[in-house]
């Protein structure tokens, strides 16, 4: 057997003494059968049972076998791992990574107390290390790959850190196959210099590999990616066509228009709808122009009656009366969901697909903010504004998003005003259209006025680490919540976000909140102690994060 040391052949010719053992296999079969059934092939001394003589011989045989072990023939060696010229991690950062990986296993499941949650720090560490150009410590690669295996969100950063040595290792272990699929990064995908390999992978690869290939190619060269997709488009299955089409959205260019325009006639309704959606995100597209033509006539500006001095101009909405074949071809769904009028439903879809920049021209040259502020006749305000919101998200239009979001800091403007009843408006999505600073500023004002109750998703789209005003707003709101006497776990979502996203520099300011305070009148029993604990954990986590960043920068021991 190649897997165990092979004993050298026992010399069968020169058995030196009477007590010498027979060949080992003979001894084993004699032992299996038993001395009572077959006389063992060994010499028996006087006064000794055959069984004892067999044991004697086996003892000599055992030691002889073990002391004469020979090397096994070497199996095929793995090809050497490609060199990774990146520098190693600073020692402290290496230790930190080892700690975070060792602590990956789910904890005791008990109350967290004041200890920082290291599991949640691993993604942060990986994100912070990403782009610094370090290579992973070789000894930690197995743990790193295991971590990436169980958490797909870690894969891109973990695999980038693991680098070529990580991929080399992953080829040897089926558990780490995921690393080779290129979902985490472009490492294993053929590059622009290998068009033949690209084509082969596109034609023969698994679905996930093909999506990854298309996505990475589109990022480098949108035209080449589109050409790849167009080559096989006719033969793809409908659900695959949908996914491929969807992946074009990340890097949409005007040159994609003819292809998308063609897809408007696709057999699959979902594909048609997606194509229309993508075209409407291209403000210069023919589809967008057609949609504008249909929607602009539905909204007009009405002058106030000459005699009425107090009246202002109003927007008057006259929704379309029918959903014709042309509209349907451009992706308008004719059937409204139950409970909605069909004319309102058609209007919403038209406005959503209309380039927002066309509205000021149609409506007296007013700015987006002025248009949003105008009263709307009838019950159409919510419908119109919701459609504008969707359009702003789709077209990434910051001016309109800003206008539609308004001023969160105005206490007169209640949350209900921002998202009135019956509205499908998604403020968080609108926020993502704003630049980072402005978004954080808006959310911090929102929290200052409205508290944390509705802020969780908004906080989730703010850039990490949180800006100073945003961090201050969150901490102040938490402090207010404590004074109100509720339990901290009512805010565990925000607390968790704060641990991950607050700027570590806020730790010193938070330190004073860790003291156990007198519970206010009417507070939930024991809440003071729990708040103190929660703040301690927050401070501890922030300090750990600060240490992590310093270590990665090579500033700490």
């Amino acid at each position, binding site marked *: 057997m190649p897997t165990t040391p092979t004993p050298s052949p026992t010399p069968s010719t020169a058995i030196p003494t009477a007590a010498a053992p027979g060949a080992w296999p003979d001894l084993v079969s004699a032992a299996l059968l038993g001395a009572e059934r077959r006389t063992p092939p060994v010499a028996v001394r006087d006064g000794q049972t055959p069984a004892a003589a067999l044991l004697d011989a086996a003892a000599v045989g055992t030691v002889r076998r*073990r002391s004469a072990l020979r090397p096994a023939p070497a199996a095929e060696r793995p090809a050497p791992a490609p060199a990774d010229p990146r520098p190693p991690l600073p020692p402290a950062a290496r230790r930190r990574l080892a700690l975070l990986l060792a602590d990956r296993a789910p904890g005791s499941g008990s109350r967290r107390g004041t200890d920082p949650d290291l599991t949640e720090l691993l993604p942060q560490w990986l994100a912070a290390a990403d782009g610094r150009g370090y290579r992973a410590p070789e000894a930690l690669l197995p743990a790193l790959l295991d971590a990436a295996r169980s958490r797909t969100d870690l894969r891109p950063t973990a695999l980038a850190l693991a680098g070529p040595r990580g991929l080399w290792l992953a080829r040897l272990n089926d558990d780490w196959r995921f690393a080779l699929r290129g979902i985490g990064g472009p490492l294993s995908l053929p590059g622009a210099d290998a068009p033949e390999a690209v084509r082969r992978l596109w034609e023969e690869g698994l679905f996930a590999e093909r999506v990854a290939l298309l996505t990475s190619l589109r990022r480098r060269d949108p035209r080449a990616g589109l050409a790849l997709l167009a080559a096989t488009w006719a033969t793809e299955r409908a659900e695959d066509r949908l996914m491929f089409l969807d992946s074009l959205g990340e890097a949409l260019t005007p040159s994609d228009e003819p292809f998308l325009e063609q897809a408007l006639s696709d057999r699959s309704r979902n594909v048609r709808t997606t194509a229309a959606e993508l075209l409407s995100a291209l403000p210069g597209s023919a589809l967008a122009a057609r949609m504008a033509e249909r929607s602009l006539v539905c909204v007009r500006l009405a002058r106030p009656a000459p005699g009425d001095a107090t009246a202002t101009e109003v927007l008057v909405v006259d929704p379309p009366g029918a959903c014709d074949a042309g509209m349907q071809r451009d992706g308008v769904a004719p059937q409204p969901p139950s409970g909605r009028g069909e004319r309102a439903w058609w209007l919403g879809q038209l406005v959503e697909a209309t380039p927002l920049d066309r509205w000021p021209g149609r409506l007296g040259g007013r700015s987006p903010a002025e248009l949003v502020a105008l009263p709307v006749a009838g019950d159409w305000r919510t419908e119109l504004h919701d459609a504008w919101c969707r359009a702003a998200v789709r077209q990434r239009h910051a001016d309109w998003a800003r206008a539609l979001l308004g001023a969160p800091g105005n206490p007169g403007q209640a949350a209900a005003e921002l998202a009135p009843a019956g509205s499908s408006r998604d403020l968080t999505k609108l926020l993502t259209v704003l630049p980072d600073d402005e978004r954080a500023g808006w959310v911090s004002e929102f929290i200052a006025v409205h508290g944390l109750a509705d802020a969780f998703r908004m906080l989730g789209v703010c850039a990490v680490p949180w800006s100073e005003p945003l961090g201050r707003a969150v901490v102040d709101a938490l402090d207010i919540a404590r004074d109100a006497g509720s339990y901290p776990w009512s805010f565990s979502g925000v607390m968790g976000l704060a641990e991950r996203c607050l700027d570590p520099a806020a730790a010193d300011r938070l330190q004073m909140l860790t003291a156990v305070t007198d519970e206010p009148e009417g507070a939930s029993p024991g809440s003071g102690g729990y708040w103190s604990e929660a703040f301690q954990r927050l401070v501890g986590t922030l300090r750990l994060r600060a240490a992590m960043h310093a270590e990665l920068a090579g500033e700490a021991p």
Partner: protein
Amino acid sequence: MSPHGERWTRDRVLALAPDEASRAAGGRLAAAGRWSGTGAGGGAVWGMCEGGDGTRYGTVVDLDGPAFQCSCPSRKFPCKHTLGLLLRWAGDEAGEPARPGDGPAAGGQPPPWAAGWLATRRERADRPPGGAGAGGPGADGSEADGAGAAAPSRAPADPEAARRRAARRMQRIAAGATELEQRLEDLLHSGLAAAGPAAGAASRTGADDPGGGRGSWEETAARMVDAQAPGLASRVRELAAIAASGPDWPSRLLEECALLHLLNQGFLGIDRLPPPLAATVRARVGLTTDAADVRSDPETVTIRDRWLVLAQRDGAEGPLTTRRIFLRGERTGRMALHRSFGGAHRPLEVSLPPGLLLDADLAYYPGARPLRVALGERYAPAAPGPVPTGCGIDAALAAYGHALRDDPWLDAWPVVLADVTPIPGGAGGGWQLADADGESALPLDPRCLGRPALWQLAAISGGAPVTVFGECGHRGFLPLTVWDPAPVSLSP
């Protein structure tokens, strides 16, 4: 022993941790605000830590040694509280505390609960090593082996009574060995097939069943415990597992039965053996020798060298934690193994991370192939050492073979392999370490298959030759440490 006035680095603290999980837990505790009454001074650090359930544990560290004491029930040693405390105290490279203000402040006086332990410990340490007798070894083979600290002298109250007790124990073991011999002969008489995996049902038929079913082996093992021969008992228990160990079990069972037979015969004829071999037989049967006796025995071979720590590995043995530390002398090239035992209320006192170089006396336990040592005097603080030199695969197998000539019961012999390339096993195949010439290879011990250690080994190698320390034996090679070029302890 040198005074330790300086603040330790975090690295030095983390190197003490018995495993990664402890490191992580210690790191967490260090960052948490659960500490009170922390302080440092006079070569010691102390503090109280509140556990998850509100219990407060007192932790104190004597930096000289170092030695640890914590009132928590953890079997890890040092425990997470100790590590957390030391991490809070540990400084950065500039010697500043990691957390000014809330780390243990220097220059303090230990509180009474800490001072008591420190005083007792230092009083013990001040005595010269090698006093007669030793504190509390049990039948489990443990020893109170402090870092160069002998236990308080305890002269036998009545040497004559002690001699009689020892003679009585020898008789009981001899009776046990005789009984075991009969058991083995019966087994070989009726055949190993009766002990095979299919024999489980048959073995329940009664105590006179000559077969080797698991139940009857357990019973025999219990008889050996009664005979005060724990070494025989544990070998008997291993026999029970072999029958279920997969293909080729008859060969392995015959090997182990034969070696057990050899041990019984050795013990029964111990008076006729040369003294070193007799000592080996005594130790294998389960008769322990106290570290203090080893140190004080004039016959003991004590060697001063600069010893490179090759591996430190903790394992569980019943309720005890066993720690094995492998060392090799820089000048003499001799291998040494330091074993210590810890339990819930008896912490392991020696911690030597791989890579350290230790200028010290090591006293070899008697034996035909001496390996186990007691720590004697240390002449300098441990310092980082070099990557060890190593041998090839032929030499490693030969080293094991030579060692077997002296001690046939050895399962493996520690060796450093240089320039070997790990070859991962394919589906179901075994792993190997291939020699530099690419022709010959050493299979890895199947017991380490499926463990992270193997993948760490492969990752560090990257297909290139590495230096590996481990145990080379009849089951294959069990890797313990690899150099990259810093020593990396492979996960157990």
